[in-house]
């Protein structure tokens, strides 16, 4: 008798959720953020519909401040797998030259990410959007549902979420409403890495250690990815052996010093690590409960 180990279990559970959405919603989309969680999500979605093709497009909300390597990887992935990749930029924000350095992380994220995402969902009329968020990422997510309902203005009302009994998901929505669906809800960061190792899932090279030009800002190791990162007096980029634990807009994403050059090295490093992945995101350090605030506003 075959037995299911915990990764098999998580894998099947995620596939079940993905299929359920396709069966029940009119117009789903996969929010592709290029990072490791998106890579796993995409891998699972492909499995869910094999030998057929992915029955929905991918959407990347491009803040225009992503690492250049991420954009290259995104386009390569779409081409390699023959995927429909929608890229959306908040043109209004772009015209107003909104950016993380000039406007700060909060305003930048609000306009170029949260707002841009709403624009794209409305523009294409998507009623279900897959996201790669996990419950273990942050304490406020521990109670997040797999199917997270958003009102007509994409607002998340913590008091108005549906109880999830068994795997019987209530997928009914009124016109204009939508859901965010999190098939990786029960995965931990370590599960994600183990699965990437087992399934040999391609990742952006930024996750792996390499010498990169780094400056130190507000306690974070920031990579100088292009010349929009104006150096302050006395700042001098240094070649450091670093990798990234999460990926986002490069001026907001801290690297960690690490020699881990392979997935296996990363797993070993993680099993010995003493800090959570969110520590390297500038957005969280604003105040206690900040993620929850962001979520109510429609941030993923």
């Amino acid at each position, binding site marked *: 008798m075959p037995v299911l*180990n915990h990764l098999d279990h998580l894998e099947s559970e995620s*596939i079940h959720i993905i299929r359920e959405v396709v*069966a029940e919603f009119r117009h789903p989309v996969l929010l592709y953020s290029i990072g490791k969680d998106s890579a796993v999500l995409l891998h699972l979605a492909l499995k869910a519909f094999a030998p057929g093709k992915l029955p929905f497009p991918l959407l990347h909300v491009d803040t225009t401040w992503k690492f250049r390597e991420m954009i290259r990887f995104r386009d390569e992935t779409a081409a390699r797998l023959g995927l429909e990749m929608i890229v959306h930029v908040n043109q209004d924000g772009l015209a107003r030259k909104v950016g993380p350095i000039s406007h700060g992380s909060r305003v930048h994220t609000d306009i170029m990410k949260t707002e841009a995402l709403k624009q794209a969902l409305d523009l294409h009329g998507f009623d279900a959007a897959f996201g790669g968020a996990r419950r273990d990422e942050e304490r406020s997510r521990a109670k997040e549902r797999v199917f997270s309902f958003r009102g007509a203005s994409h607002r998340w009302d*913590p008091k108005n979420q549906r109880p999830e009994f068994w795997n019987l998901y209530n997928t009914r929505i009124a016109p204009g409403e939508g859901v965010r669906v999190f098939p990786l809800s029960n995965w931990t960061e370590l599960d994600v890495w183990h699965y990437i190792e087992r399934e040999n899932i391609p990742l952006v090279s930024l996750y792996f250690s390499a010498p990169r030009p780094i400056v130190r800002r507000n306690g974070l190791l920031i990579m100088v990815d292009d010349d929009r990162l104006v150096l302050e007096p006395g700042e001098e980029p240094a070649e450091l052996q670093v990798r990234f634990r999460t990926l986002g807009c490069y001026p907001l994403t801290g690297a960690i010093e690490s*020699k881990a050059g392979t997935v296996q090295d990363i797993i*070993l490093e993680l099993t010995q690590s*003493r800090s959570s992945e969110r520590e390297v995101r500038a957005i969280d350090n604003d105040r*206690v*409960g900040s993620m929850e605030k962001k979520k109510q506003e429609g941030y993923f």
Partner: protein
Amino acid sequence: MSSNAGPGAATQEIGTVLARQDVKDQLRFIICGSVDDGKSTLLGRLLYDSRNIFDDQISAAESESRVYGTQGDSVDLALLLDGLQAEREQGITIDVAYRYFETPKRKFIAIDAPGHEQYTRNMATGASNADVALVLVDARNGVVTQTRRHSHIIALMGIRRVILAVNKIDLVDYDRRVYSDIVREYQAVARDLGTEEINAVPVSALTGENVFTACGNTPWHGGPTLLELLENVEVRRDELAAAFRLPVQWVNRPNPEFRGYSGTVASGHVERGMSVVASPSGRQSTVERILGPSGDLEKAIAGQSITIVLADEIDVSRGEMIAGTDSPPEFADQFAVHLIWTDSQPMLPERSYSARFASASGIAQITDLTHRIDVNTRNRLAAKTLELNEIGYCKITLDHAIPFDPYSVNRRTGSFVLIDRFSNATVGAGVIDFALRRASNISWQEMKVDKATRARATAQRPCILWLTGLSGAGKSTIADRLEQKLQSLGRFTYLLDGDNVRHGLNKDLGFTEEDRVENIRRIAEVARLMVDAGLIVIVSFISPFRSERQMARSMVEDGEFFEIFVDTPLEVCEERDPKGLYAKARQGILANFTGIDSPYEPPERPDLRINTTKVTADEAADDVIGFLRSKGAGFG
């Protein structure tokens, strides 16, 4: 690579880490305790001791401990867990939270359903996804009302295995007697609830005693620590042991060459070559291919998301259930259920709700609320409605029959949720106790168009009107008038005359004992087929023996067979003698003639008696129609 460890050492280490993943399984457990029993502290302890908490999370909890904590200067482990800001500020938690930790042996998903107001709803939600329950009791208070309540809810949700943690054992001086009294009392509670397995352990969440290791304060406890219990309890035992069920989620048809049925195996296992049946269509086939997440499989088991390809081109759609032909699910449209109400709008009997089962969906009506159950005492209370967090025992009726299993047999295929059709809120969660009205069993080949479908098409309720009586009693004349009248009322009918059948279908039969039985069997069988076809069948047939008429009645369902006694005295018949048969019988030319030298057994309790010496054939026909209307038969 660090300089003092060779590549070999590092490789070996990662090898061990990866190898462990292959055998590491997953346990989902719900943790139940009332406020201040130490639930958050214990969960924090499990996460902390299993090193699943990062330093930055600990320092965040440290800084918050100064603001919200209850432990003075040391870290309040409970704060490692808190989620929503509003709750934290109020100092209470009000929703189901999921926590993750792992040991080299197992990955754990701890389902934490705290809170006061929404307790029943949250616990039931959490329990629906748990294998095992960890019930926490404060050693100082013992088994309290809440303990009984929690145990009752988890039992209702089908959890049969419980780990009892007697917490704060440090506060009762590690007293053995306190502990064993509590364990004994809890065992009594659990026995009543049908709990199959209870393992108990005395712990201190605060000091860590017996959580991961025995620190030596309870030398009298020879048993395993809490972690050992959690690591060794068998997972998903019942699901794997149950019969194969695959609720079809999605039909995968990427091209004309491939048609697969996707879904998660709800229970049991499936192998290539296995013969399967889809419910409710009843179509059968053989499993040709099984595609698992990583390609073709010989066999798939409960919990796996698969796509199966069948050998035959049969049409199966989302909502159907595929099962082994040797153990198909039951099939019904009316159930006795336990229902937990989860909405602030109370339940309204007679109102229709949308219902979602493992495979099918439908429209459900709560037709009868038998009683409400007090979750604390398990007493049955009279009720007209269910409010938020109340549990009731009710009957529900669906708009169509669905495949299912009782919840006690299968948690995946015996459960459902109710959804308000206007607000779309999930208003209730239910578990099927048993079917009240069983639809036809589908273990044999059932056609998609069935009797009910045909009856709908003809807008009438098909039945057999069996006219029995002596030769010359007037059966044929009445039958003839009756058929004309029914036809003029737009009914679809057929008249089966016993004498006529002898010329065709039964012309190979004589008048021996066996032949007579066979004669009546065939007539009854033809009538039954016609009922199946949706017709009102009028049978005109002497049928002198009670046992034979009884056999005919037993071949159709209740309410489809009406025995009509055309009661004309022998003298009257003999006097009428339309075919001159009585004369011949009297002369001895005809042998075995009913009424003369062969008995007629009049019906003891006919559905209708017609006395032809008092009414005309026309009036008799009207009487039969009136009778049919009064029975709600014949007419749609």
